[in-house]
């Protein structure tokens, strides 16, 4: 059997190599890939954008699958092989193996080309190339193999030339561009049938990495098993190579396998889902959910002092959280209100070691206490929950992004996870205002990067104002006691630039705005943290004493885009850090714009690029005091004011300092700001 299969493989290989068309196709694919590699400067971006190569490959392999059957049927050799003892079936199996072999071979060739080009361009060899290999195996080799088998089965079942028509139809259905052929109404079907990149219209997510989740492998495997089942059954019916009993056993076994493989595909899970080709792109899910009215209970003055977390992140997030809360109210409480992202369903709640009744509604968790919670006393709350994280905060076997500001842990900050500001999704800040003790026991994708130290294997503990967990297609660079975690697809991680520019800004802003203690944190994450629907600059950076999270939006951020970086940092180190709440987001945005513009002016950053900033004041919809403030600010920033008014940058920075003091005092009304502005401008 083994000899027969090996020799058949050899014979098929010789024939394929002597087919000029195969070599032309292979060379064409390599040239096409080479052009793509030349144009796409990032090794991460290349793969999701290679869908046309996959789409072309699918057609080629459909035809190769047909050809591999036709080389025998064209010569009417089936009968001859059937008449030879143990020749027919081994030859057919050899053809199945051959398909796997050439699919793998083509995948390897394309991956070698990919690796050579990017390594030659100066990218360092890291985990990304291994992930890219898996990607190539899944979406090139495995998909090509399934295409080959589909072609094989078509030709095996139909001797007619109509197989070519069928194969073209199949090509339109199973490729990553199938949503173009199937249209909006059949988008769900397109999603199910697609054997290529699941997000072909969207860029690479440097944190999540490639869409090589286990579910996609299972999906491919299911196709393979179904095709194998059809093949074996038709082999049995057509050529009677198995006895009836064997056929029955075969049908039952394959049905069981198909069932077993189908079950996990239908389970809830989080996958990276973005762009036009998806029925539920991640940027729309939260937008729709938070456009509906949210529960916002009364905020009591309670605070968390410790968390002990047992966390398992796989298909779902499973958590057991023991937290200590302190009642800082002047009165006893009969209930505890916490916020927790609605995807995490609480199954059990205990208060002071006794089970407690609870009500979970949207992002709000209400616990009823059996006894009064006396002021100043601690309360031990234990919660078990499980579920899916927000599509904008990853938590699965592929990637983890659970930052301190997201209420993946039950939070005493009762705001929902997101809110909509003029239709734009905004993340609500759930950081603690004081340091909290954290103990984390974690099982999930590794390595895990956090802002607290690892004590033993899988156990972290430390004090922080919030706990951030990051894992995925990232790597860590350590220098001078700082951990710099960045995505693996950067040619130049620019950690020096990031450090220098951040330090320079923080030192200046600290003095300009009288901020108190601020310093470059020990842990810096430079990772993609947004979906494409996020536009507000305050979403791009988050800062605590020990963590700075910066979006990796641009490779040239610390050179050409430095003015943008300053725009991100202003909110991060000021009102977001200090937990200042405002009713009108334009208020803090006006502050961000004003101070960032002044800093950039004094540091001579982005000169000439500031027209957008200066026009912003007048582009905001406003009336009354707000309108007056924005107009005055606009004129003052542009220097379009009376000659006796001081328009120096120093004067304006003085005003910003006073403005920030006003905000910190809790007064964020336009009226007070107007008075302050008049006072400051009049003083000159």
């Amino acid at each position: 059997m083994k000899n027969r299969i090996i020799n058949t493989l050899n014979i098929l290989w010789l024939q394929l190599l002597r087919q000029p068309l195969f070599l032309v196709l292979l060379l064409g694919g390599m040239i096409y890939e080479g052009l793509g590699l030349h144009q796409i400067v990032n090794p991460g971006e290349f793969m999701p954008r290679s869908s046309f190569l996959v789409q072309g490959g699918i057609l080629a392999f459909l035809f190769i699958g047909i050809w591999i059957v036709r080389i025998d049927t064209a010569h009417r050799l089936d009968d001859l092989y059937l008449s030879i003892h143990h020749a027919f079936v081994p030859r057919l199996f050899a053809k199945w193996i051959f398909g796997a072999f050439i699919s793998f071979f083509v995948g390897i060739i394309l991956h070698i080309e990919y690796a050579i080009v990017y390594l030659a361009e100066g990218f360092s060899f890291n985990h990304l190339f291994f992930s890219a290999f898996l990607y190539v195996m899944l979406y090139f080799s495995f998909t090509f193999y399934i295409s080959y088998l589909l072609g094989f089965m078509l030709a095996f079942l139909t001797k007619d030339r109509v197989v070519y028509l069928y194969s073209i139809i199949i090509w339109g259905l199973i490729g990553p561009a199938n949503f173009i052929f199937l249209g909006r109404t059949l988008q769900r079907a397109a999603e199910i049938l697609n054997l290529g990149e699941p997000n072909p219209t969207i860029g690479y997510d440097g944190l999540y990495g490639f869409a090589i989740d286990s579910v996609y492998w299972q999906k491919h495997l299911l196709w393979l098993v179904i095709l194998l089942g059809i093949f074996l059954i038709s082999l049995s019916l057509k050529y009677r190579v198995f006895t009836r009993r064997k056929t029955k056993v075969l049908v039952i076994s394959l049905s069981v396998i198909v069932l077993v493989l189908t079950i996990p595909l239908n389970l809830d899970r989080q996958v990276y889902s973005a762009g036009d080709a998806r029925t539920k792109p991640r940027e729309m899910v939260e937008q729709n959910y938070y456009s509906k009215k949210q529960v916002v209970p009364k905020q009591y003055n309670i605070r968390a002092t410790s968390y002990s977390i047992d966390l398992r992140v796989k298909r779902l997030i499973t958590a057991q959280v023991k937290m200590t809360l302190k009642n800082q109210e002047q009165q006893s409480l009969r209930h505890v209100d916490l916020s927790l992202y609605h995807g995490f369903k609480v199954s059990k709640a205990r208060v002071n070691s006794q089970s407690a009744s609870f009500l979970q509604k949207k992002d709000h968790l209400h616990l009823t206490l059996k006894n009064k919670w006396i002021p100043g006393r601690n309360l031990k709350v234990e919660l078990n929950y499980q579920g899916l994280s927000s599509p904008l905060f990853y938590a699965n076997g592929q990637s983890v992004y659970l930052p301190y500001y997201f209420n993946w842990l039950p939070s005493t900050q009762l705001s929902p996870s997101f809110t909509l500001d003029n239709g734009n999704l905004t993340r609500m800040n759930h950081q603690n205002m004081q340091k909290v003790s954290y103990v984390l026991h974690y099982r999930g994708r590794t390595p895990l990067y956090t802002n607290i130290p690892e004590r033993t294997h899988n156990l972290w503990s430390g004090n922080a104002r919030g706990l951030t967990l990051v894992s995925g297609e990232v790597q860590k660079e350590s220098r001078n006691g700082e951990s710099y975690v960045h995505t693996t697809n950067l040619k130049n991680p620019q950690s020096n630039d990031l450090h220098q520019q951040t330090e320079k800004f923080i030192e200046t802003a600290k003095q300009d705005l009288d901020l108190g203690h601020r310093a470059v944190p020990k842990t810096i994450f430079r990772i993609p943290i947004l979906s494409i629907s996020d536009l507000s600059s305050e979403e791009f950076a988050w800062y605590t004493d020990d963590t700075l999270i910066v979006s990796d939006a641009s490779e040239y951020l610390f050179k050409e885009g430095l003015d943008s970086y300053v725009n991100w940092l202003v909110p991060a180190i000021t009102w977001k850090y200090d937990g200042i709440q405002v009713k009108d987001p334009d208020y803090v945005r006006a502050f961000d714009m004003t101070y960032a513009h002044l800093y950039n002016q004094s540091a001579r950053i982005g000169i000439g690029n500031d027209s957008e900033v200066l026009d912003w004041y007048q582009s905001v919809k406003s009336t009354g005091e707000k309108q007056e403030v924005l107009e005055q600010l606009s004129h003052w920033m542009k220097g379009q004011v009376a000659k006796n008014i001081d328009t120096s940058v120093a004067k304006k920075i003085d005003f910003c300092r006073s403005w920030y003091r006003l905000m910190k005092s809790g007064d964020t009304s336009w009226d007070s700001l107007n008075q302050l502005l008049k006072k400051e401008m009049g003083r000159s």
Partner: protein
Amino acid sequence: MAALKIDNIVKTFGKKRALDHVSLEITGTFGLLGPNGAGKTTLMRLIATLDTPDSGEIKLNSLSWTQPHQVRKLLGYLPQHFSIYKSLNVYEVMNHFAVLKGISEKDERKREIDRILEAVNLQDQKIKKIRALSGGMLRRLGIAQAILGDPKLVIVDEPTAGLDVQERVRFCKLLRRLAENRIIIISTHIVEDLEATCDHIAIINEGKVITSGTRRELTKHADGHIWEMDSPMDADPPIPEQVIISTVQQEDHYRIRFYHDMELPGAGQVEPNLEDAYLYYMKEADHV
């Protein structure tokens, strides 16, 4: 030598009965003769285990055709339209069949291939691509693959179809040579092929065996019924068209060979050959 026994085989496709209670005993080189659609290929496919009969039995000694896997160990088969991968060479093809037939040892395989290629006179074409072979060479390659592994039963379906006269004669001689110690069944509608190769012949028509026997036994049946007469070229033949076997032009007249139950004026009786006998049997079958 063992005999292949075909006992009362019936095979039906839809409403058409392709084989109707066929019984034969086959030894040596055996020819199956009959017109197109007579059921020869169906019978060959049954013997080659490519199909199963509706009823009846095929046996070689104690080995029954209900165990096709065992039967295939003894089989060599050359299908009617033999062609093979054009981009491979003769040796690669032979090597592939040798491996498929279970000759796993490399040296043994090489020896066996060389021996057979020598026998079929293809040794010089060993590294020639299939696409470069003539029709006759391809048929010889077909028979070469069929006899690889020394099968005891070789089935050859329409072996000379498409060959020119020279190649046909050469191929028939080859079959004759290979017949030692094995049963070779040759199916054909070309009578001369069997004349040169077969010891025993069965005539089959409309799914039934009309007769079977040695060449002599078959021709004997037509004894006294085959005649020849001369006919002028400018006149209509003096005998009905449907009994004419052949018409040969000779100088200023035609020599007409025909079968007839009674003597006709001007006709001389001749000794029947296999073709005469075959046509005579077919005429009889038509009358029935």
